[in-house]
């Protein structure tokens, strides 16, 4: 048994860490967040030049053929810098769906661009009524002579504001929450009838709701077999959950280091506040939560690319549940340990806290995954 990264994996993580440290200061990040793009085109370019946007893809695409562990290394470091680039949405989730469901022609058409970072993909799986149930889809795709007509609305599509390609789920048959009858479509956001309502997000990124008004797409827009998308969505969301857990660990590590520094530096009543036992024990609890989260991020990374199984589902649900709870604990207690300064926009801690809370609102919160896990308690492999 060996929990250490291989030399290659360590080099990969160090590369990302150096890049983030060098180019992603907190002040710069605030600036990127306020641009229309919402992230740094230059940093995205650098990720691409170092081959990092290609990490999970096969070698013929310039990738490493990276597993969950390589993705974990990248995401943890991006989390540490609160990086705003659409790595999760485009490379992990978008690229994952195309690689999993796409025909050879579709893969050839899109994946080189995704792997090089030139083609930014955003994925719309949620809807206004869906909560976190990705089978709860009302958007319809009606078959036409030339392809399909899409109508409906996809909710909170992170990165959708600047995406070059949108992947959305839509119902080709079945009732609202049926697993069967879901299909995936890849479309150009400039297609007639696609309307985007853009907004910033609480954690400094950008996204949109996508309204599809009788959008005509050709048959080549269908990604995967008609009506068979549910299992693919579940599998690829699972990979994204593992990546999100890794990101969360980077955010938590930074948040905890910052809190610890503050407890040592801040003096009240003539002593550093870290001398007070109540704050010491709280710091211990935060660190224990981080350890739990770290373990689950490692476990989820190790199964992320495995064949689907009950065990894989259980682990990913458990990991997201732990990450959600740990993230909230560290965010709230970190703010409390800082006092008022932890609540100011100009001090980075507040932004780490916001990211941790918002990670719990992506791909299912701790309650959602508790229910998923509970639902699998009696399922035999």
């Amino acid at each position, binding site marked *: 048994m060996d929990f250490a990264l291989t030399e290659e994996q360590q080099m990969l993580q160090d590369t990302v860490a150096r890049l983030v440290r060098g180019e992603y200061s907190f002040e710069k990040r605030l600036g990127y967040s306020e641009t229309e793009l919402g992230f740094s085109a230059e940093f995205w370019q650098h990720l691409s030049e170092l081959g990092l946007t290609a990490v999970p893809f096969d070698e013929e695409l310039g990738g490493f053929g990276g597993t969950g562990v390589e993705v974990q290394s990248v995401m943890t470091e991006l989390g540490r810098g609160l990086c705003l680039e659409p790595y999760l949405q485009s490379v992990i989730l978008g690229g994952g769906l195309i690689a999993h469901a796409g025909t050879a022609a579709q893969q050839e058409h899109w994946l080189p661009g995704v792997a090089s970072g030139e083609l930014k993909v955003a994925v719309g799986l949620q809807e206004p009524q869906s909560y976190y149930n990705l089978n709860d889809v009302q958007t319809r795709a009606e078959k036409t002579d030339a392809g399909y007509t899409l109508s409906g609305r996809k909710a909170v599509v992170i990165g959708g504001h600047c995406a070059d390609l949108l992947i959305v789920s839509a119902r080709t048959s079945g009732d609202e929450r049926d697993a069967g009858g879901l299909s995936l479509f890849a479309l150009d956001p400039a297609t007639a009838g696609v309307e985007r309502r853009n907004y910033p997000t609480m954690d400094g990124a950008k996204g949109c709701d996508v309204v599809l008004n009788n959008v005509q797409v050709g048959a080549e827009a269908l990604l995967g077999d008609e009506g068979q998308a549910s299992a693919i969505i579940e599998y690829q969301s699972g990979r994204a959950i593992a990546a999100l857990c890794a990101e969360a660990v980077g955010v938590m590590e930074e948040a905890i280091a910052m809190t610890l520094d503050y407890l040592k530096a801040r003096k*009240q009543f*003539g002593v550093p506040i870290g001398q*007070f036992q109540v704050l010491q024990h709280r710091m211990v609890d935060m660190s224990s939560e981080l350890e739990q989260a770290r373990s689950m991020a490692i476990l989820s990374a190790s199964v992320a690319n495995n064949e689907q199984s009950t065990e894989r589902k259980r682990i990913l649900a458990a990991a997201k549940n732990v990450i959600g709870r740990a993230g909230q604990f560290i965010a*709230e207690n970190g703010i409390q340990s800082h*006092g008022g300064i932890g609540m100011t926009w100009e001090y980075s801690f*507040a932004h780490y806290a916001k990211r941790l809370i918002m990670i719990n609102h992506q791909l299912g919160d701790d309650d959602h995954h508790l229910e998923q896990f509970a639902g699998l308690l009696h399922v035999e492999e």
Partner: protein
Amino acid sequence: MNINYTPEELAFRDEVRSFLEQQLPADIAAKVKGFRHLSKEDHQRWQRILSKQGWYATHWPSEYGGVDWSPVQKHIWDEESCRYGVPRSIPFGVNMVAPVIIKFGSEAQKQHYLPRILSGEDWWCQGYSEPGAGSDLASLKTRAVNHGDHYLVNGQKTWTTLGQHANMIFCLVRTNTEVKAQAGISFLLIDMDTPGITVRPIRTIDGGYEVNEVFFEDVKVPVENLVGEEDKGWTYAKYLLTYERTGLAGIGLSKAALSHLKALAGRVLKNGRPLIEDTTFSQRIAKIEIDLMAAGISNLRIIAAVEGGGMPGAESSMLKVRGTEIRQSINDLARRAIGPYALPFVEEELELDYDGEYLSDKDAAPLAPHYFNNRKLSIFGGSNEIQKNIVTKMILGL
């Protein structure tokens, strides 16, 4: 034992209700209930209505224009105010500096300031905390040097709530550096228009502006603006803090937030059914409602003791801790209730006069910002850690 209101108290509650039904402007109530920002004008409009009714100064004796309500009546007023969506009164003038002026101020100060507080002419803010003096307030460094007819003030205050609207600030300043920290502090009333004062807004985690830094550079303050005696300010400050801590438990606010949450959870869908019917979520709500029920009765027990002539003691510290935890939990659930829609930060929907299409539920936009903003509840007014220290010493004798 009879834990119900007396017939007189019930009659008073009816009077309060009918006043609020007739006089509280609907637009203001809607902002309050939806956790939206109020403008200075909103606050002032409501204050004028209250003053006209004679119900603005609930903590003052009647000889100064106060209402002179009993503790139970004050409680009824607070509770009904929260239920109807009355703006939280900006306490710095009416509930904080005024009681200090009434108890320790000069006759001239009473004559000058109290009517101006009642009429809304003066908007006060609080100059207590400093960058290096938060929980350890007595370590404050802002210096005031006595030059005969005036003090020369230099230093910096922080977390000054709504200081951007204020024309007056009450400050704790150091007038004596030779004695131990608490003994060298004085209580000064300062006109914000005095040359040398700069207000700098602090943007908070939720993107809003409600607190400020206030800088003092060679600010001349007339000696008649000293309250009571020089170097005795700590006594007055502590007196004021007992006023600050009453009501910090926010039971009424929690009840209002809970009914807002339940209405929201009745509209949001999960698997095609209202979220409030979902086992996991409804149990989360139920647990908080039960905690709130208990805290509500604890609050009434304290009020009854005060009504009977007692002083609110360290029990109010315990209640502040519990009460703020409950409110924060309700804010947490409201944010959770909207699921993925906690992510969008739709600033334009924070304004009540927004007339565009709502991104999701009409009440969704303020929920995540409000959750983050209310992390302050366990920090301000004496952090919950400080409150627990008070309970440790005063009640437990440890």
